[in-house]
């Protein structure tokens, strides 16, 4: 259900036209900003993040991380959310990704085949998993940072919410025990 329809479906509240106008004005601002130039990531880093995010959450029968413009969200987080040392660790992690890819395949990750890129991502994911399984701190591992930002960025995006999770802003009812294949989840 589209938001405007959903809001209408609520009915009754005289204030709805006003608030929905505000909602859509805000939406336009955010979407206008999405095409702007990056504030932290340079073109190469941008391409590296986009490629890796799309390996983590690829397009399948629904859109993937790239379609959801996850890289723009990651750039915002690097610019305005993380402390400088965490931002720098993340960026150093991107350089490390290229070093690993170079060592294996003689080229940067963005120039690799999908299978080559996936082998580097798999090694990094295993590294984080080993830390987690050994109860070692892993939150600051650059690949964990990237994966976390990718997951959040994708599932909170408009395409992720509407196409993948079937998120409904206004469910209209509570179903306490519905078939999993039922009318959408959260």
């Amino acid at each position, binding site marked *: 259900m589209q938001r405007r329809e959903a809001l209408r479906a609520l009915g009754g509240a005289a204030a709805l036209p006003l608030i929905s106008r505000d909602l859509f004005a805000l939406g336009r601002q955010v979407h206008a900003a999405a095409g702007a130039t990056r504030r932290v990531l340079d073109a190469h880093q941008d391409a590296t993040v986009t490629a890796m995010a799309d390996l983590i959450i690829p397009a399948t029968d629904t859109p993937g991380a790239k379609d959801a413009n996850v890289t723009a969200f990651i750039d915002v987080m690097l610019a305005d959310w993380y402390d400088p040392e965490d931002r720098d660790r993340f960026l150093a992690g991107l350089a490390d990704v290229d070093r690993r890819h170079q060592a294996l395949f003689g080229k940067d990750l963005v120039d690799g085949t999908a299978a080559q890129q996936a082998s580097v991502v798999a090694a990094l994911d295993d590294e984080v998993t080993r830390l987690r399984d050994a109860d070692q701190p892993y939150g600051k591992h650059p690949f964990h940072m990237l994966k976390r930002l990718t997951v959040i960025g994708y599932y909170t995006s408009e395409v992720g919410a509407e196409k*993948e999770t079937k998120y409904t802003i206004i469910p209209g009812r509570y179903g*306490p025990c519905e078939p999993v294949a039922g009318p959408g989840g959260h």
Partner: protein
Amino acid sequence: MAKTYDAIVVGSGMTGGWAAKELTEHGLDTLVLEAGRMITPEADYVEHVPPWEKKFRGERDRKKQLVDQPIQKECYACDEWSSKFFVNDRENPYTTAEGTSFLWLRGRQVGGRSIMWGRQVYRWSDLDFEANSHDGYGVDWPIRYADIAPWYDHVEEFIGISGEALGLPQLPDGKFLPPMELNCAERMVRDGLKQHFGGERVLTIGRCAVLTADHNGRKACHYCGACERGCITLSYFNSINATLPAARATGKMTLRPYSVAHSLIYDKKKNRVTGVRVIDAVTKHALEFNARIVFLCASTLESARLLLNSPTPDFPNGLANSSGQVGKNLMDHIMGGGASGRIDAPADRTTFGRRPNGIYVPRFRNVKDKHPDFLRGFGFQGGGGRGGWGRGIDDAGFGPEFKNSLREPGPWTFGFYGFGECLPRPENYVEIDPDTKDAWGIPALKIHCSYGDNEWALMKDASYTAAEMLDAVGAHDIDAYVERNAPGKAIHEMGTCRMGRDPKTSVLNAHNQAWDIPNLFITDGSCMASSGCQNPSITYMALTARAANYAVDQMKQRAL
């Protein structure tokens, strides 16, 4: 000569809205003073703004919060949507005694914290009103359940409470709209508890101030899930959605936002408060407003602060404080003893919609028996559910398989989370810190508060019994814990101007009227003589309505 109102109400939140409604409906020309800004639902409610329209997608403006809201951010509701309903900590400082901490989580706006409250509503019983008289902590309440029961009815009928009647003596039933539904995991736990604990430990759906049917011009809940962001259909109770509009409809209410109460004005000859000194929050000019009676509904800590900041030659330790009890006996609810685990609820079933409510297990300790380790008791909140995409952050894997795995809901889990009664103890108190002033030049509070052995024993047993119940109903991977939360975190602070039977040992009489000054009423959480373990707002509201009607009667009889 400035206008004299019939009544001034300081505060427009949970209790201020009720005082305003009751006083104006009885014809009193009432001025409501609110420290913060106006709230307009059409502009300020943001419950339907989706995460993709927020800059940090729900991850909060972390750096800004570290500067402006280092204390407020400890509240789950102080998020990217609702942080605007919490105060700026730099403008609103307070200090704590060395070696202690207290989280004062506050909202300053029309509606106060009723905008972001947890909406859980549980009546007290005589088990609670008689507690002090039985074990000697604090002073005896001057009222019993029979005194407040009609006022619980009155409040509940107006605000609309959904819940299930249980017939338990320790948790009286109310005037309920249809209950919300338990989900499949919660039903399993409920049935398992019935089987293993008989009627001793009972699980019910939370009793909450969220409508399950249209009520008094407000619409039934549409399960969008984030009440603390506002509600354009007015489906949960807050003062903006219900009590303030009722007061406004009388034509008798004047609501003045941006009015920071500084102190009370006292006329020694008449022994009456004659008004309130206010700092205009915008111009910072000092103003005075006059009235025949004054209701303090400013919150537990603010009402105590106001009295302590209003000393006179006759009340050198703060107005209405001949007992010395103003600011004393600060309580919260200790929370965070509990347990969680996995439940074998049907794997092919899940929930739809976001129910803004959980489960409740009424107090079962020290109800009939006597526990050797602690006085009083605790109740559990909590609930069951299945994980969403968020678990992908910590799951191994990537690619189509990873993505598809997150499309399925995660395992069913269930948690019990305890809220325990805090004893009234004089060593938990507030005083004025003369060296610290807020943004309006008003001296701030220094808070001395810590939990004692009884509170920690309650949480230890809450954790133990939560795990015991999960084990009994066949849960797996049970994790039992006791969080070390600072006082204040439950945002149920109360007790700094207690009611009592003796003016020497209490601040307020049985009608929330100051023993020392008959036209001064205090009806927010500060009036509480003990804390129970139930979420307190409904009791504050009932006491407010009761006190307002008493005050009106007294005025009619020319006693005030």
